[in-house]
């Protein structure tokens, strides 16, 4: 079953081409839509909701043509905008009940579904307080709740992790995952961070300048992105800690990328390590401990969309990384 299908979909404004012959075929599950700002993500969502006519091409959501069945689509689809959209002077409950009724739910059902949905997104006692006093994380949950309250078959989430701290971001991503696994609702989620989507999504679509750059299941991306950045200090025995670690890790059979990055002032360079699994983390930790140098940081690299572009356009560090990865494996 296809949830979203577009066929050479184009949207041209007088001076800008927002979408350029975009053809997509998105199935059930969690799909990430990745693109830089202005890549055409929001334009695509507008067209999918039947609110903005396409210049040419066609699009269907849940098997319904967006041109002719906009109202029927909007009844079965939930939408969470990127920007703030909550009035501060009402409580989350009042607001979501109202939005449920706007989706066509009878009054009693609207109240029941609101209570259920707010609990599912993790809002409890605070849902009776005015929204004005909520934290950004709580507001994002209310926005998500209003998109889910009418039990849609598909939700379109526009940058749901915007403005959240790392913990809030992880919670939101977990919640998005559950929308599909527990609620059985398909999800289209946009972001400009590929790294966070690959952990959440089954499938990732990358658009740039309104064109389809890449569409593939997340496993294809994973091999590029599990790169660890490791930064160590120098010590008396190892005046160049980075070089010593590079040597030791190579001996331990771990593949390293050719390039190095400049680390924090006072510390060394950053080594880029290819992680093949959980054990790579242990090996790095043990190696650093054996050398007796300080570990400043070891982090998973969040790949920005720019690196995917480089990947396609020209030979670059990312390509080298990929090459190094497959050589090592």
């Amino acid at each position, binding site marked *: 079953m296809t949830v979203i299908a577009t066929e050479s979909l184009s949207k041209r404004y007088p001076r800008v081409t927002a979408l350029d012959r975009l053809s997509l075929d998105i199935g059930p599950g969690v799909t990430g839509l990745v693109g830089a700002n202005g890549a055409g993500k929001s334009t695509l969502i507008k067209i999918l909701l039947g609110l903005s006519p396409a210049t040419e091409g066609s699009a269907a959501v849940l098997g319904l043509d967006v041109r002719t069945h906009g109202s029927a689509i909007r009844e079965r689809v939930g939408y969470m*905008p990127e920007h703030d959209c909550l009035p501060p002077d009402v409580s989350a409950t009042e607001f979501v009940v109202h939005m449920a009724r706007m989706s*066509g739910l009878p009054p009693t059902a609207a109240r029941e579904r609101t209570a259920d949905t707010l609990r599912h997104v993790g809002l409890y006692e605070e849902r009776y307080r005015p929204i004005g006093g909520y934290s950004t994380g709580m507001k994002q949950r209310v926005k998500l709740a209003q998109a889910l309250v009418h039990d849609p078959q598909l939700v379109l989430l526009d940058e749901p992790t915007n403005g959240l701290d790392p913990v809030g971001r992880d919670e939101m991503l977990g919640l998005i995952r559950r929308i599909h696994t527990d609620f059985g609702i398909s999800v289209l989620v946009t972001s400009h961070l590929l790294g966070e989507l690959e952990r959440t999504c089954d499938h990732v679509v990358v658009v740039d300048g309104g064109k389809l750059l890449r569409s593939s299941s997340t496993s294809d991306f994973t091999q590029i992105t599990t790169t660890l950045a490791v930064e160590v200090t120098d010590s008396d025995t190892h005046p160049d800690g980075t070089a010593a670690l590079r040597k030791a890790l190579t001996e331990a059979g771990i593949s390293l990328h050719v390039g190095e990055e400049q680390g924090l002032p006072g510390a060394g360079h950053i080594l880029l390590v290819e992680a093949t699994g959980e054990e790579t983390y242990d090996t790095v930790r043990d190696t650093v401990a054996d050398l007796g140098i300080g570990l400043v940081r070891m982090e998973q690299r969040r790949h920005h969309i720019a690196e995917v572009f480089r990947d396609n356009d020209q030979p670059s560090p990312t390509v080298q990384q990929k090459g190094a990865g497959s050589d090592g494996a």
Partner: protein
Amino acid sequence: MAPDTSTQIHNIGYRSYDGPRLGRAYARKSLFSQSLRGAYGLGRSAKSKVLPMLLFAVMCVPALIIVAVAIAVPGSTDLPIKYTTYALTTQVIIGLFLASQAPQSVSRDLRFKTVPLYFSRPIERVDYVVAKYAAMASALFILTATPLVIMWIGSLLAKFDFAHQTKGFGQGLVSVLLLSLLFAGLGLVMAALTPRRGFGVAAIIAVLLIPFGAVTAVQGIAYSTGNTGAIEWMGLFSPITLIDGVQTAFLGATSAFPGGEGPSAGVGVVYLLVALGLIVGSYAALMARYRKAGL
């Protein structure tokens, strides 16, 4: 919080919704009733009930006094003022009500960008505009028609001539219906032009009062210089004098223009056309305003 939450949610489980989805017409009706109730502060905080309820009470008190006087004074055969005069004399209260409630009805949705949430649902632009317009006009109609109902019931208690009173009452209702539609349209357009509530309030008061002041002043000058022919035309340029002109020409009202120089039936047609044109124009302006306010 995370581990607790997830286990709890897992235990409760997600229930899907198989019940009815009532679609556009229902959503439009819900938005209408929510907006109408909101205009009187119902379903809103206690603080926001104060002003509309106070204005409603102030609007009704003179009617109660009129009725009391009519019943108490022996030998009276009619109410001291006409049904059609009531809204004209209380126009400041009506203006304050509109200025305080129209912005809360539409500016809020624009300011907090809630409008896209409506348009990502089954309802469309026309549903939103119609629901908001109808709600504001109904709120004004309740405000202006309730005193007339009080006066009519009072006149019956005082055993005044039933046919005469009911005719006057009916003429009054038609007049305040037209007034409600006209004022609601102007108020909502002003409020929808700015997402800032304060500007909306000021703009509505300005639109209602400044032209009225100017028209009355010019009419006064025309009257004192003996230029009475100009008076009946001047009234076209302010909302309340427009209503005055229409009801003087067609609804048996006594004009509040200087010297009672209300428009004749011929000029009255122009008044009616201008009033209807403004109502249609307000609706069209609102539709145009929300074309850009989508996602």
